[in-house]
């Protein structure tokens, strides 16, 4: 991608900034963590080329170190067949292939380190070296302090901006109207300049620093990428001020103006008014520029082949198992209970265990917001939060209220047990410290040596009180002052319920009890908590959605409308809501008093089964925890995961999506007898009810960004945790409730911390759709822009024929038949427990033979 060049004589600043902005990370404030493709900037390239370009720009690794792949080959996790396949895919000639094959197994001591970053080692760096000023070390602390204080959401006791004041005005006010100089803006050259507007300041500074218009955008980009975290945050907030609870008016242009003024001030201070401009650098011609010529991707062929071979080895484990699944039987009798889980890979194993324990349960998978998009404000919440995928802009606001008399909420600032986080005056601080410190000795010792016995006082959202009522039915069509509709009309409810039921293929054969099981995660001492919750709810626990869904589907008015639209839910069918706590492996059931008596027996049976399933699930998770108990006792395992979620010293309350690798869109029968090792996103989809790909298009438009986003974020954070990820979480410091940084002066860290990705196998997502290729083709046409994901290979896309189970791989050349070696057969085992025993690494897909039909 060429960066913006000036047209004619005029350098167009706005256009240049707009062009640069797509290089910035797009991670919003940490309170809602939305997974996305870390390298969205290069998504218009094919995968390997995009990765190569990004590697060069950011100075990051493209793949795992060579030795890792070789080691995987030795332990059998990369198969020779897969290497053959990957070499064939690479498109090199036969002789080259032989040379390649020979060199693949040799040691290579040069491929361990990432390249020098083009963005941090360009003209700016050369200039700074020449001037002998460590400019970043001078400018960044000043900038980060101003930005974090301006954007701060409540950590600092004094807010920087006055009402509605923008960043630029703030800085100008502090500089021009304070008795103490704001360092370094008091430098006279800058002080004079600040009376102009930001655009003018940028141009003046560029004139003085760079001196050649054709290099302006290059310079600005290098400035921005000097601190990608903050630049990205400013860009996000500029585009969506609602991302912050206390809105702030800031733009990249303002930030650049302040930063350039700051740079100029420092250079002026150290070198006087006449210093060497960038345009006058003697080595200018030799410095690589950020344009097309230098961004021609050079994919390291050997590593590419290794990587694809690793992916294909893993992918063919699932494909071989799917190939051998029998064709589906005709519908059986209605099950006792149907449970709709989130598509999330963490529910994959829970569903398997639930079905094992209770044969009368049929499970479905759907995105965990249950098709209901709204803003939610709970009883104790001060602000409403969006409860739907990031791509949807909700228009409805749901509040919860209670009929119970509640004690007036204590002002937390007066609560002594919360003293350690609240503000107080100097004198009070003295007295508190003198008197209360010893209590903290006890409290500290307690929470380190007896972690699970008492919560350290921080309530987590997933433990929210379930007693409030949701105000779902809209009473008037007047939007409130923020432009939101308060609640849904019956028709809108029916739209949403029907949408979900159709997409998962549940339009007939209803069980008496249907459970919507959302999920959330509770952890303590974890600023990334939002990344552990439901991705389809924009990083929130999905409880309100499940409750809303159950309420709507139970509503007689809604059912009437559904009936007119051909979905006849019998009156004997009742919906209920619950939430799975994925870190503690506990299930909370909501609104039980309002559940119809007729289904109480089913509910009791379900709860019992669920209790057992949760314990087994906890044991399966424990095999990943090196310090956890490797025990056959499910109860011990369960106790361990609860303790883990409550320990303030535990940086890994759970391993999240660490295992994600597959996504299967199809009927449960296709995967019901498979042990998938918690690796699969499972979306229910009935191929027979979708002849024109309408439903599939809708499903895929959620799966690509959500599941693909999760997958690629884990992948890149794992491949280069320093650059694409957030590094280790241990030294993280929370900045302004916006994000985390290393220490007090660091740049914001984007991506995932190493504790979340350390056991991840960085392979692209394999999406298997149970549908014939021509319907899929029709669906893909409807996807428009999202086709990039499959066309450029950012996910692997495979069709599995609903009848013959023939497998076809999608590629730029169209569908390509997959022929797996016939010797490759999924190993079989009787029960899940037999598979996991003694295993601490990922396990290939197994065929389970001991399950109920």
């Amino acid at each position: 991608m060429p960066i913006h060049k000036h047209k004619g004589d005029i350098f167009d600043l706005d256009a240049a900034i707009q062009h640069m902005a797509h290089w910035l990370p797009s991670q919003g404030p940490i309170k809602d963590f939305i997974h996305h493709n870390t390298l969205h900037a290069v998504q218009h390239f094919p995968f390997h080329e995009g990765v190569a370009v990004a590697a060069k720009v950011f100075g990051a690794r493209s793949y795992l170190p060579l030795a890792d792949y070789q080691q995987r080959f030795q332990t059998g996790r990369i198969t020779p067949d897969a290497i053959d396949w990957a070499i064939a895919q690479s498109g090199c000639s036969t002789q080259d292939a032989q040379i390649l094959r020979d060199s693949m197994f040799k040691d290579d001591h040069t491929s361990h380190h990432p390249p020098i970053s083009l963005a941090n080692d360009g003209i700016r760096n050369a200039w700074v070296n020449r001037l002998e000023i460590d400019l970043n070390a001078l400018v960044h602390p000043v900038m980060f302090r101003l930005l974090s204080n301006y954007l701060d959401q409540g950590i600092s006791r004094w807010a920087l901006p006055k009402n509605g004041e923008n960043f630029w005005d703030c800085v100008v006010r502090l500089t021009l109207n304070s008795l103490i100089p704001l360092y370094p803006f008091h430098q006279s050259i800058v002080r004079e300049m600040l009376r102009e507007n930001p655009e003018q300041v940028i141009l003046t500074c560029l004139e003085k620093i760079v001196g050649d218009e054709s290099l302006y955008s290059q310079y600005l980009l290098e400035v921005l990428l000097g601190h990608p975290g903050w630049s990205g945050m400013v860009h996000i907030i500029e585009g969506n001020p609602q991302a912050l609870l206390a809105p702030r008016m800031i733009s990249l242009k303002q930030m650049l103006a302040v930063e350039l003024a700051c740079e100029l001030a420092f250079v002026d201070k150290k070198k006087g008014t006449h210093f060497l401009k960038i345009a006058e650098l003697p080595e200018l011609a030799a410095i690589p520029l950020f344009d097309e010529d230098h961004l021609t991707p050079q994919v390291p062929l050997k590593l590419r082949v290794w990587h694809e071979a690793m992916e294909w080895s893993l992918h063919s484990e699932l494909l071989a198992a799917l190939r051998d699944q029998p064709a589906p039987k005709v519908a059986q009798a209605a099950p006792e209970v149907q449970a709709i889980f989130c598509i999330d890979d963490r529910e994959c194993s829970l569903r398997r265990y639930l079905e094992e324990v209770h044969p009368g349960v049929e499970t479905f998978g759907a995105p965990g917001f249950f098709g209901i998009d709204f803003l939610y404000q709970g009883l104790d919440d001060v602000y409403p939060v969006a409860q739907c995928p990031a791509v949807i802009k909700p228009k409805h606001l749901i509040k919860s209220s209670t009929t119970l008399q509640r004690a007036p909420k204590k002002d937390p600032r007066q609560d002594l047990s919360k003293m350690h986080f609240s503000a107080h005056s100097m004198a009070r601080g003295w007295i508190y410290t003198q008197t209360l410190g010893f209590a903290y000795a006890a409290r500290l010792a307690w929470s380190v040596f007896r972690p699970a016995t008492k919560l350290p006082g921080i309530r987590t959202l997933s433990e929210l009180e379930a007693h409030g009522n949701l105000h779902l039915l809209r009473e008037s069509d007047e939007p409130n002052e923020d432009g939101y509709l308060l609640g849904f009309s019956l028709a809108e409810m029916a739209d949403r319920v029907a949408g979900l039921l159709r997409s998962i293929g549940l339009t007939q054969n209803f069980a008496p009890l249907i459970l919507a099981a959302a999920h959330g995660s509770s952890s303590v001492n974890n600023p990334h908590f939002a990344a552990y919750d439901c991705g389809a709810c924009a990083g929130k626990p999905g409880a309100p959605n499940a409750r809303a869904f159950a309420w709507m589907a139970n509503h007689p008015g809604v059912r009437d409308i559904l009936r007119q639209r051909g979905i006849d839910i019998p009156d004997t069918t009742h919906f209920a809501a619950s939430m799975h706590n994925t870190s503690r492996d506990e299930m909370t059931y909501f609104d039980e008093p309002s559940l119809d008596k007729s289904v109480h027996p089913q509910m009791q049976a379900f709860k019992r089964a669920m209790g057992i399933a949760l314990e087994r699930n906890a044991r399966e998770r424990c095999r990943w925890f090196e310090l956890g108990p490797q025990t056959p006792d499910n109860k011990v395992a369960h106790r361990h995961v609860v303790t883990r979620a409550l320990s303030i010293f535990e940086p890994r309350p759970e391993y999240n999506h660490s295992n994600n690798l597959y996504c299967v869109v199809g009927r449960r029968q296709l995967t019901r007898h498979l042990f998938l090792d918690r690796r699969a996103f499972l979306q229910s989809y009935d191929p027979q009810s979708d002849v024109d790909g309408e439903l599939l298009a809708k499903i895929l438009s959620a799966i690509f960004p959500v599941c693909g986003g999760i997958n690629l974020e884990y992948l890149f954070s794992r491949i280069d945790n320093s650059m694409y990820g957030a590094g280790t979480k241990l030294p993280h410091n929370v900045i302004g409730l916006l994000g985390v940084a290393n220490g007090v002066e660091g740049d914001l860290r984007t991506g995932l911390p190493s504790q979340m990705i350390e056991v991840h196998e960085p392979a692209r997502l394999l999406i298997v759709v149970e549908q014939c290729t021509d319907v899929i083709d029709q669906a893909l046409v409807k996807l428009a822009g999202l086709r990039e994901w499959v066309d450029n290979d950012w996910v692997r896309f495979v069709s599995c024929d609903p009848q013959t189970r023939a497998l076809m791989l999608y590629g730029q050349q169209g569908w390509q038949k997959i022929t797996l070696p016939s010797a490759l057969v999924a190993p079989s085992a009787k029960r899940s427990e037999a598979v996991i025993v003694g295993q601490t690494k990922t396990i290939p897909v197994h065929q389970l033979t001991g399950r109920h039909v």
Partner: protein
Amino acid sequence: MNVLLLACVLLPLLGLSLIFLSDGNEHKIARISLWVTRAMSLSIIALLALWALSGFKAYEYQWFVLYQQDDYQFPLLFYLDRVGAAYLFCVGMIFTIIVKYCRVYMHRDAGYQRFFQTIFTFAFGLNVIVLAGSIDMLFAGWEVVGISSFLLIAFYRHRWQPVRNALRAYTIYRLCDVGLLMGAWMSHMLFHESQHFSQMAGLFDQAIEPAGYAALSVLSWLIILAASGKSAQFPFCFWLPRAMEGPTPSSAIFYGALSIHLGVFLLLRTMPIWSFNFLPRLMIFSIGLLTVIVASLSEKTQSNIKGQVAYASIAQVGFMFIELSLGLETLVLLHFMSNAFLRCYQLLVSPSIVAHLLRVEGAVDTDFYIKDQRKLQYLPNSLRDVLPDVLQNTLYVFALQEGQLELLVRNMLWEPLKKLGRTLNQVSAWIKWLTVLALLVWLLIAVAEVSGVAGTYLSMPVSLLMVLVSASAFSQKHSPFKVWNSIAISSFLAALAVWLMVPSALFDLFLFLSGIVPAWLLGLLAMYFLLKNDNFAESSFRYRAFSETRPGLSLLLFLSFLGLVGFPITPAFLGEDLLLSHASSQHPWFAAPITIAFVVNGIAAARVFMRLCMGRPVEVKEFRL
């Protein structure tokens, strides 16, 4: 009791060496550290219990004399009293908690072994300080704590911020060590062999000679300097928040709980020295007061949680200084323990702040500006529209920039030194040769023993030269070899100057140089191999990350760095003390140049080590055009 005392000091050392010798297996390290910690806290409890049973009496124990010559002796001396007991209790408790915490917290971290090594080094240094019976012993512990602190700040060494901040903290430490080094030397002079803490209180019972006042005042100032540097008091507040770069528990134990209160400890220990006069008291009071003001204002505008806790802690230590100056010893002890636990807890749970503020408090915005118009009416009409705004802005800018203290310190101390060094580095080569020649002539004059006092006068230009060479090392950016050589030359010159003054000290000089010379040569060798294929001057600002790519040589360089700066692992540490005591017992002025050189050399050497060994490795060749 003696055995327990020794156990408290030596057990962390045992832990350190066991972990160092282990094969890096995490579980083994965890087992070692847990058991050693248990043993240590048991011996602390037993020691304190025994001490309590014996009626809380101050207790002194001399293990053996490490070195003795003439009237100089360096005994390994331990001392336990109320103050020491309070500190020891906190050390034991917090250290135990932190080790348990880190067992899981640090799990799978690449630096697991490194972390536990460093933290045991820290515990060792801490116990030496707390149980030290003399200022010399205390200084040894002080240095150990300083280095382990430096290593933990730069724990994540592949990023440049931690590395820079570690250097920043280290420079302040180093600067303030001067206070302690000279303090140790002065106490030798003033109290001779009776510099035991145990005898200090009794020292002032008899009337002090008038001459003693001046010396005691200087000594008090030096101690105050050392204390305020370590405790991040005015004007050194700024380094503490920036030191929060290591893993959270290490920040908690260092900058929340223990290390930051060492300044208070030093003042408590040396109370008899400085409390005799109102002047040092007033100084401590004003340092405390200024700190409280600056720190509590700065705290208000900290938008990151660790910085906020850091400033809150600094402010409390400021209060402790005030209490100390008023003589409220017991209150200080209580305050210290209480603050240590509170800050430790706060830092450990600091990641919860997001959840806490969003879910519990629901306070996302805070107030600073006067929004209430009624409050304005108390101001005169003419000022209503102008002044409040200006004042608000001024206050905010003051708080935002944390009182400009960093700038102040930089401009006062480092900039002049840098400028001097830069000028020196531009001096042409043959002037340098001329100087060497002059030096040789000088030497000949001295050897010829033209007159008895010649040596004294000759040593003056030599020591001046020593400072100049150190300054040139300080601002040399382009060649690590030059820096290294300059530091060594500076040390040789120090030895030469002492020899000129006190020819009889030859043996001690050899002792000193026997630490310096191997370190110097070893460092040169390590750098030669490290930089063989590298043109350093071409990009002298890049961190070269050799500790990842060439760990063996980096360790060598680190050890030689420690040797060169007189860390208590080589004879150079003892030698440094000896040089001081020898030379300045007759010529007190000499203390100034040698300590300046000592500080500056340390910083310059640390800088070389960081540039070479820290950072993230990259493929350099790819884009060289």
